[in-house]
């Protein structure tokens, strides 16, 4: 984080915070949609968990972390957009021709988004706890630490997509499909054991 202590890194972070706030629709969608899906899917998830032998489960144990993780993966498209739209706006060359280092530019772009995704997680788990009665098995603090690492990994995944692919469409398709696969395999849609049971039949 040495770079962000420089004025240039801070300037990039500040401007990218403005950019996120100036057009908040994508962030609002990645918060509102999982909350809606949680509400609709909770009864089905509760019934499924009962079948699995979890008598006291409400379904929030599945849908709150499941939807949060799924939509966090889908948020990688935000990271791709944040970089690729600089090309569309013609500002990328201006950034590169400035005296800011590459590290200033990359960190300045991803740190606001990292904070934004952490806030997304906080809202989803917070509303999940208050509205749907979600409680983690372990401590909230441990969950927060895991989420912080998870979001960092996601942001790096997004940066990797930007580095590897030449167009926004390629990066977003790969990010969304890859995110869906990883979320599915991780148990965001169904508990993993159930998925594996289904496959073994």
């Amino acid at each position: 984080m040495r770079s962000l202590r420089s004025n240039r890194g801070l300037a990039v972070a500040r401007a990218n915070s403005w950019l996120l706030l100036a057009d908040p629709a994508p962030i609002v969608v990645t918060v509102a949609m999982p909350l809606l899906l949680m509400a609709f899917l909770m009864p089905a998830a509760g019934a499924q968990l009962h079948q699995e032998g979890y008598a006291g489960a409400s379904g929030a144990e599945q849908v709150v972390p499941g939807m949060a993780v799924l939509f966090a993966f889908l948020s990688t498209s935000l990271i791709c957009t944040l970089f690729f739209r600089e090309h569309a706006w013609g500002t990328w060359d201006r950034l590169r021709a400035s005296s800011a280092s590459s590290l200033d530019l990359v960190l300045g772009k991803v740190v606001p988004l990292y904070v934004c995704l952490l806030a997304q997680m906080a809202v989803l788990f917070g509303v999940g706890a208050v509205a749907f009665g979600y409680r983690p098995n372990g401590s909230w603090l441990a969950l927060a630490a895991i989420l912080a690492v998870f979001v960092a990994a996601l942001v790096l995944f997004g940066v990797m997509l930007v580095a590897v692919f030449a167009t926004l469409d390629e990066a977003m398709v790969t990010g969304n499909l890859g995110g869906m696969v990883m979320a599915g395999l991780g148990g965001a849609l169904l508990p993993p054991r159930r998925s594996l049971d289904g496959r073994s039949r």
Partner: protein
Amino acid sequence: MAMVGRAAMLEIDGLCKRYGTHEVLCGVDLAVLSGQVLALLGPNGAGKSTLVSIAAGLCLPDGGQARVAGFDVRRERRGALAHLGLAPQDTGVYPTLTVKQNLDFFARLNGVPSRQVPGRVREVAETLGLTSLLGQRAGQLSGGQRRRLHTALAVVHGPEVLLLDEPTVGADVAARAGLLDVVRKLAAGGAAILYTTHYLPEVEQLGADVAILHEGRIRLAGHLQEVVASYAQTRATLTFVGDAPVLSGWQVAGERLVRDVVGDELGPVVADAIAVLAARGGEVQLAGMEIARPSLETAYLAVTGDHRNAPEGGADALAA
């Protein structure tokens, strides 16, 4: 083009760039001094934007080097870019941010200390006529206003070297005049400005020095007046009643005789022609004479020999 006592702020030495087998730049040498506006001219695809990209550190050369304020752009990139302002060919602004936010960001990004940023933003906005637009989103600006903001972002940190790549494309007459005025002021303030354009009248209005890039090489460099005096041709046209007579050294075009002359030859050439015609008596009847004065456009065409890719107004100038 020598300007005694002024430091070379942008130095291009033996620059080469190849795309595949196509050599875009082959051994280009240029220097732009403090306070100088150097207009880099050339047909489409001549390598002007490539040269600007290399000078701005956006593209690596295959040979040679570019130095900004004495810093090698490749090896001392951050030092070089700290002294550079770039307005690329395509407009680059953040449409969802306000004019003020755009200016504020690029000032800080280029190292203007926080305390000086509001003052710089106000000053540059005033210079470029953006003061009343500071609170407006850049995406809502007209094309000309957006061009002015685009240029303002390049100068907000007060760079010593300014690269303006076709800065007036798409600007209306008033916006163009305003931008030229800004370029003059910046040069008067000591900035070294490399200015690429296809609009040759702009170069004449700026009174800039000229370098013509053609087929990867600088074909001609010098002060505007020197270039025009050395290379531009004056066209003399004699119009007759009925078919034009045959006259040595003149081209017949229906009722007209046409001759292009360089430098001071015009007077003697026309005087000789009239003397010869007068000697023929009533055989020929001269209806009129037209002298098309030399301009940068005719010099440009003489140097590049490329009439198909003539800059704005070039082909017309010859046809006149």
